[in-house]
């Protein structure tokens, strides 16, 4: 787990690369990899790769990056973990490849030498890498199927720069800070910036599950090699066991296999623990996979002590059941205010979330952990969100009226006019959007509605951004090909929008700020392909498959507890404190009924834009 960076002066007119610039970009990410730094330059100084390392596999110096192939023709800088690297290595060795290190990084070099770009299909894990092929004089950028690890690039028409973080690309001062309206509009609509956009025009995210070639003509178009939607479509067409027992058996095998793979490390692997099924079941499966000594950590708040929101007691019960070394870390209001400037500085792109991950990662690092398992992705995989119920319901109800041309727009206009401040803006858009999956999902997850943007970010940015992003069109693109079942459609939407742009990205910056690698066994392509046909059949009742998987069952209270969102008192701290006040200047945000997330979003964007 690390930070990667690179510069390629691909155009004949471009200046040779500036080593100091590459180091500034790399060193901005030192928290991602505090254990060592490295850089590599081609002889003609047209290409440079940089790396900062968090040592987890092969702790020796031989694992340092950027790493070259034995013949010097390939160089790679890599962030992430390839969980099946031992199998890949063994099979490469049978075909005559000779290895010099015990790292997964070296596997990338050999696999590329053998298969070229198609190698990405063989990788199981989370990754982002830049690989220089001297024979082709071309740079290959690649990112894992779900987009767990980030990769951003900036092309000015002469020189391409890439890095794990947006702010790192800006750190050396050569990348334009011109704002990208589509990124800002996306943030205001969704609460996170939808890829491939960032809030800067010149900087783009390499989309999840994509590769990008850069050669003498610059970047080519990105090529998507994996699609979650496609996986669901194929799963729906495939047969799955009908018998409950067989389904449970298959699910347990697949889950245990994923957990086992996610434990590969030369340092201890801990776990985040809440009171929910996802993290609890994973800890149970870690035991089943043979890990005896498990450090678990839970974040709790003084304000919640003795109340139903408090996660600590149930988490402690799970920990006791599985015999982990357990720590409950109390976060106070004072600590929150102390950390807030650092949180905003670490926040790579504006987001309304990530605060919980910040504190639980901080706690894990205080315990000496470098790697922690998280239950992220369980609700997407097993249909745990209310959207799995609401979105299909809205679509069924509103599909017909939604088809009457203009009705939605007129209704919205009238309702907004009559009820001005008193009606939830989303309610006024129900008829306009609720009739399609993309529209209904937009309503379910939306933060602001398009017609509110003008007041929040200004008319011109709103106009340009809405045109370029096309929010509904943007959501539709992830639904290609289109799964038949409602469950499949919502699972694709949640995994490709909310989880990718919000949960995974927030987990990356908030954990890397503490030099902690978070692993997500429930976000795994192999697991998805094994489970999709079963979950699509079971719909939103699928969670029991996860709950019943550990050999030692979860405490009954955990399984039977009604689903609650993870809540924190942070909202009330922000509400009552006078330290941040900018939102009061916008009338719609100052209104009594305004949701706190909207005010927080405004606050965050003000802080990020000012930085």
């Amino acid at each position, binding site marked *: 787990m690390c930070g990667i960076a690179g510069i390629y002066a691909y155009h004949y*007119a471009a200046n040779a690369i500036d080593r100091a610039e590459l180091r500034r970009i790399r060193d901005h990410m030192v928290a991602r990899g505090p254990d060592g730094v490295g850089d590599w330059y081609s002889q003609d100084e047209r290409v440079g790769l940089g790396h900062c390392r968090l040592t987890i596999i092969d702790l020796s110096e031989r694992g340092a990056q950027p790493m070259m192939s034995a013949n010097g023709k390939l160089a790679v800088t890599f962030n992430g973990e390839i969980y099946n690297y031992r199998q890949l290595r063994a099979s490469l060795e049978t075909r005559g490849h000779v290895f010099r290190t015990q790292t997964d990084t070296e596997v990338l070099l050999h696999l590329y030498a053998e298969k070229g770009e198609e190698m990405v299909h063989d990788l199981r894990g989370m990754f982002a890498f830049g690989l220089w092929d001297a024979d082709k004089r071309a740079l290959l950028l690649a990112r894992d199927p779900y987009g767990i690890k980030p990769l951003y690039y900036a092309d000015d028409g002469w020189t391409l720069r890439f890095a794990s973080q947006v702010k790192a690309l800006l750190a050396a001062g050569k990348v334009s800070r011109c704002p990208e309206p589509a990124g800002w509009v996306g943030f205001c609509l969704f609460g996170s910036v939808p890829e491939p956009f960032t809030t800067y025009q010149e900087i783009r995210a390499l989309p999840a599950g994509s590769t990008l070639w850069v050669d003498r003509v610059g970047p080519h178009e990105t090529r998507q090699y994996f699609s979650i939607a496609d996986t669901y479509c194929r799963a729906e067409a495939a047969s799955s066991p009908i018998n409950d027992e067989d389904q449970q058996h298959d699910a347990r095998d697949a889950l245990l296999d994923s957990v086992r793979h996610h434990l590969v490390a030369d340092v201890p692997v801990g776990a985040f623990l809440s009171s929910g099924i996802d993290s609890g079941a994973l800890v149970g499966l870690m035991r089943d996979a043979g890990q005896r000594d498990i450090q678990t950590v839970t974040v709790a708040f003084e304000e919640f002590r003795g109340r139903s929101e408090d996660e600590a007691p149930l988490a402690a019960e799970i920990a006791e059941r599985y015999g982990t070394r357990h720590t409950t870390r109390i976060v106070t209001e004072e600590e929150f205010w102390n950390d807030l400037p650092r949180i905003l500085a670490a926040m790579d792109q504006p987001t309304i979330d990530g605060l919980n991950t910040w504190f639980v990662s901080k706690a894990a690092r205080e315990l000496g952990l470098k790697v922690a398992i998280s239950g992220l992705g369980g609700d997407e995989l097993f249909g745990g969100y209310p959207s799995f119920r609401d979105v299909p319901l809205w679509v069924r109800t509103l599909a017909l009226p939604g088809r009457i041309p203009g009705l939605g727009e007129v209704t919205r206009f009238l309702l907004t006019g009559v009820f001005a401040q008193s009606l939830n803006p989303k309610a006024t858009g129900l008829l306009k959007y609720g009739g399609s999956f993309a529209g209904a999902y937009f309503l379910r997850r939306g933060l602001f509605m398009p017609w509110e943007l003008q007041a929040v970010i200004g008319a011109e940015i709103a106009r*340009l951004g809405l045109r370029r992003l096309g929010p509904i069109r943007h959501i539709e693109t992830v639904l290609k090909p289109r799964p038949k079942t409602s469950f499949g459609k919502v699972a694709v939407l949640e995994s490709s929008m909310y989880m990718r742009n919000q949960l995974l990205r927030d987990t990356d910056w908030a954990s890397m700020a503490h030099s902690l690698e978070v692993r997500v066994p429930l976000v795994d392509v192999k697991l998805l392909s094994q489970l999709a046909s079963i979950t699509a059949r079971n719909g939103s009742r699928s969670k029991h498959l996860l709950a019943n998987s550990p050999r030692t069952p979860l405490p009954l209270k955990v399984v039977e507890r009604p689903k609650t969102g993870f809540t924190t008192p942070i909202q009330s701290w922000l509400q009552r404190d006078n330290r941040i006040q900018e939102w009061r200047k916008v009338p719609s945000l100052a209104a009594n009924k305004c949701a706190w997330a909207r005010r927080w979003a405004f606050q965050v964007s003000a802080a990020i834009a000012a930085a």
Partner: protein
Amino acid sequence: MARSGLRILALVTDGFGGSGGIAQYNRDFLSALARCDRVGDVIVLPRLSSRSVGALPNGVQQLRAVENRLAYSVAALWTAIKHQPFDLVFCGHLFMAPLAAIIARALRAPLWVQVHGIEAWCEPSGLKRRSVESATIITSVSRYTRRRLLEWVGIEPARVKVLPNTVDPQYQPGPKPAYLLERHAAGGKKVLVTVSRLDNSEQYKGHDRVIRTLPGVLSQHPDTIYLIVGDGDDRPRLESLAVECGVAKNVQFTGLVPPQELPDYFRVADVFVMPSMGEGFGIVFLQAMATGVRVIAGNRDGSRDPLCDGTLGTLVDPENCEDLASAILAALDNPAHTGDRANRFKPDLFREHLNALNQCFSVQNGGALAALPSPERAVSVSGAFSSFRNDQQCQ
């Protein structure tokens, strides 16, 4: 005689025989294009006529210019029908993009749009924008123009490439020509030169800013003269400004100069200075650097590119007179000619890059098109044009 290979229709404002930066760029582009791998004929339809077209490169055929806008559109459509099939439509100016887009669509050929400078910096009409968005590839002369274009255009940034101006081999270092020293009484004097048109509606080139710094420059180098090469309706304003600043004696307006004298006007200079705020690229910087003259340019526009971000010359904030004055003085104090500094913009590099772009975009697309069974292709193209033919018959 027709050559085998890709057939390209080029719709341009100025072609062979035209004058100015865009005409020069088009000539360089079309000549290089005709020499690209797998390219057959390039048929050029210019808008503005010129007196002498001269010899055309092998493979390029230039049709007679048609100035009237409507007549040009008709001529372009007619050319597309008459000379079809085409594998690529090249559009040399943003203003022609709607016409070129319609023709490209009808021909089912990829569209290549070229953008230069200020015309692409602000959002145009919706029609022009959508036409540009239909392009397979857009080339921009500079990184700056590319960035400004990407502010409003909805297209994959990977399709917008930079293809900088190139510089003609006639621009090379040489001694100060005696006939010009004599003509401008410049013997033994320091010479500042700007070469550009003098357009009253633009006024962004920065002559006025140079004139304002002259009193300061003269206080250190009293023997300095400023040659303003080029002509236009902004000249009276600049003349009175020179009087106002008390430097009229030191500012000389050459008017238009014959093209063959232009390299000498760079060679006579100690410093080429043009603190412009509106350059798409600024080919004159390349010409100056190729003759070995020190250059000073503004840092807010496409000028950054010929100077390679200040590696090959001095970039100044064009509106900061002190910056400009000290840059001029520093250059005058260190007057040695620098040798050809425009090496990295040589025509062979330009051609190689254009060839690579053509391989990457139009050949791939054209290749896909050419891969269709030929009868189907013939039907589709003629089908697309049957409507045009019918319209014409009705008229």
